[in-house]
């Protein structure tokens, strides 16, 4: 067995989900579109709405976005906005409400433009995650979002419904976490590309229970065929931890180049991978307080400071027995770009691992250059063995 059969079913979800979202919308369900790992999907679920991720990982709509946005802007922001104005993203099209958040300046100002297209609620994320006052601020943002949904959708979001939603999303996180941890095996049974796809697709699942069941099936299939999958992978090249900006289908060039060059991406520390799965929502606490605590603990580069990211990288580097760390930065993403300096020092000095930062966009224009850098990085690791 080269690849779990379930992976094909998971890939098929891309088409299936876009039909399901249409059906759900036509059946009168309300849809809340969101972009970020800071978005508390539980509150939307408790309101009886469907939370979905919105498209932003393809280069295709970037050109359209550049008619209104500056060219020198992160491709994720341009892609998200381009999808929105060209109506190429079914999830955006069927969204009744958009949830925005003040992460980076680029997104924040792009949301101002996007807010003209559909009703939008903005959550005011603090600039730093430390301190009781910031938690209180963020807790209040949970209250505001809940009230907004109650008023807009004319529903009552009860504590019981919130608790139920928290349990459901925690179950999803636990399933995705166990899936991710399969690649801690050496050699890893799944390619980094397949792991990225399986993790990324979850945001588009219209029915979370179905999504969880599919991931459970994938985990079972991998576990039952562990030896065969490991054998099929042959001799394993350098094991790479990918950190930095989010990656999805269409913005996966760096994962592809690493794996074509003989490396294996075994850990995805970014927010489309493991970052959002690490901490669960505390089911014993008052729901909005518990949600505020969980989401504020996300180690994102938009925060001053972001020690949590270094801690997570250290933990994952050990757990996944990685041989090197690649920090991916989208062009014009100042927060990840600046933070890369800390990550580089930390990975080299504290972890004693080879490190490379790659700054690129969604286009293929620099694929040749990147291949050289990534191949050279992998060669560096080989000679260290």
């Amino acid at each position, binding site marked *: 067995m080269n690849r779990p059969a379930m992976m094909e079913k998971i890939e098929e979800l891309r088409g299936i989900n876009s039909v399901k979202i249409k059906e759900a919308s036509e059946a009168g369900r309300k849809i809340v579109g969101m972009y970020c790992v800071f978005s508390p999907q539980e509150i939307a679920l408790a309101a009886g709405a469907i939370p979905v991720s919105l498209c932003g990982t393809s280069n295709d709509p970037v050109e359209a976005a550049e008619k209104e946005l500056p060219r020198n802007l992160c491709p994720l922001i341009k892609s998200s906005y381009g999808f929105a104005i060209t109506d190429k993203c079914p999830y955006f099209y069927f969204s009744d409400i958009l949830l925005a958040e003040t992460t980076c300046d680029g997104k924040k100002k792009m949301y101002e433009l996007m807010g003209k297209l559909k009703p939008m609620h903005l959550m005011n994320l603090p600039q730093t995650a430390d301190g009781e006052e910031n938690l209180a601020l963020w807790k209040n943002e949970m209250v505001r979002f809940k009230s907004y949904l109650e008023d807009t959708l004319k529903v009552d979001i009860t504590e019981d419904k919130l608790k139920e939603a928290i349990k459901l999303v925690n179950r999803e996180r636990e399933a995705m976490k166990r899936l991710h941890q399969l690649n801690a095996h050496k050699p890893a049974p799944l390619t980094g590309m397949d792991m990225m796809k399986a993790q990324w697709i979850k945001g588009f699942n219209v029915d979370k229970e179905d999504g969880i069941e599919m991931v459970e099936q994938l985990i079972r299939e991998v576990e039952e065929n562990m030896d065969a999958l490991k054998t099929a992978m042959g001799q394993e090249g350098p094991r790479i931890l990918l950190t930095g900006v989010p990656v999805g289908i269409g913005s996966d060039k760096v994962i592809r180049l690493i794996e074509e060059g003989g490396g294996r991406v075994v850990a995805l520390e970014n927010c489309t991978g493991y970052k959002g799965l690490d901490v669960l929502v505390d089911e014993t606490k008052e729901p909005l307080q518990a949600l505020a605590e969980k989401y504020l603990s996300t180690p994102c580069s938009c925060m001053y400071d972001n020690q949590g990211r270094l801690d997570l990288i250290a933990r994952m580097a050990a757990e996944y027995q990685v041989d090197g760390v690649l920090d991916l930065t989208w062009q014009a993403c100042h927060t990840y770009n600046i933070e890369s300096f800390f990550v580089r020092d930390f990975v080299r000095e504290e972890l004693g691992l080879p490190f490379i930062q790659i700054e690129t966009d969604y286009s293929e224009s*620099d694929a040749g250059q990147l291949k*050289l*850098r990534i191949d*050279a990085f992998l*060669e*560096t690791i080989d*000679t*260290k063995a």
Partner: protein
Amino acid sequence: MYAVGIDIGSTVTKGVLMTDGIVTGTHRLPTGWSPRETGRRVLADLLARHQVCPGEVQQIVATGYGRQTMEEAHRKITEITCHARGAYHINAAVRTVLDIGGQDSKVVRLGDRGQVVDFIMNDKCAAGTGRFLQVMATQMEVDVSQLEELAAEAKPVQLNNMCTVFAESEVVGLLASGASKASIAAGLLTSVASKICTQAQRVGVVEDVFFSGGLAEIGYLKKVIQEKLGVPVHQSHLAQYTGAIGAALSGMASLEPAGKEQ
């Protein structure tokens, strides 16, 4: 037995013949439009000139931007690894390699065994490379090889643009305002030197510093780099062959029993 390293660069293709760790022959040709053809020709010419039969060559290793096109190569290794190995072979005290080629510039930091510990290279554009100088020289109706002589006695003008396209208009402006060709030539070379020095400072400069690549032949660049970095910069008559030597060495290393190279 022999090992051959072929470094197919964007501008020049270099070939090196080695036996027992010694360079026994070199050859180079302009790459032209076909890296595949030129790679093949450099290999054939190199063997013919030194009367070596193809059967006597155990390993051919290709490097450089055109390495993937070379079907004759047993292995393909990036020029970053090859420059490190080649420089370390030429001088085992080297810990930093500055390389300015036809379309890219890079700085490679070496460990105590000559292994790559870090590197940095220019982005997709040709700023601060041989191509940059070529475009500017054409603008001034001189050849790249004449820039150094022109610059020798002049006071460099300050060039603000590193981008090849913008710098071209800047040069046009300077010529129009009456700046001498000599001072512009000095300014251009100084700006190329500044660029590689900035890259070097990002990865950290550790002595000895070695200057490789096609532009290493320009003494003026070496002089300015030394001034800016404040350390001596080493050179070799084989500087342009550094990558090819590293490739050939990789071929020999892979002939040794497994584990020995480690």
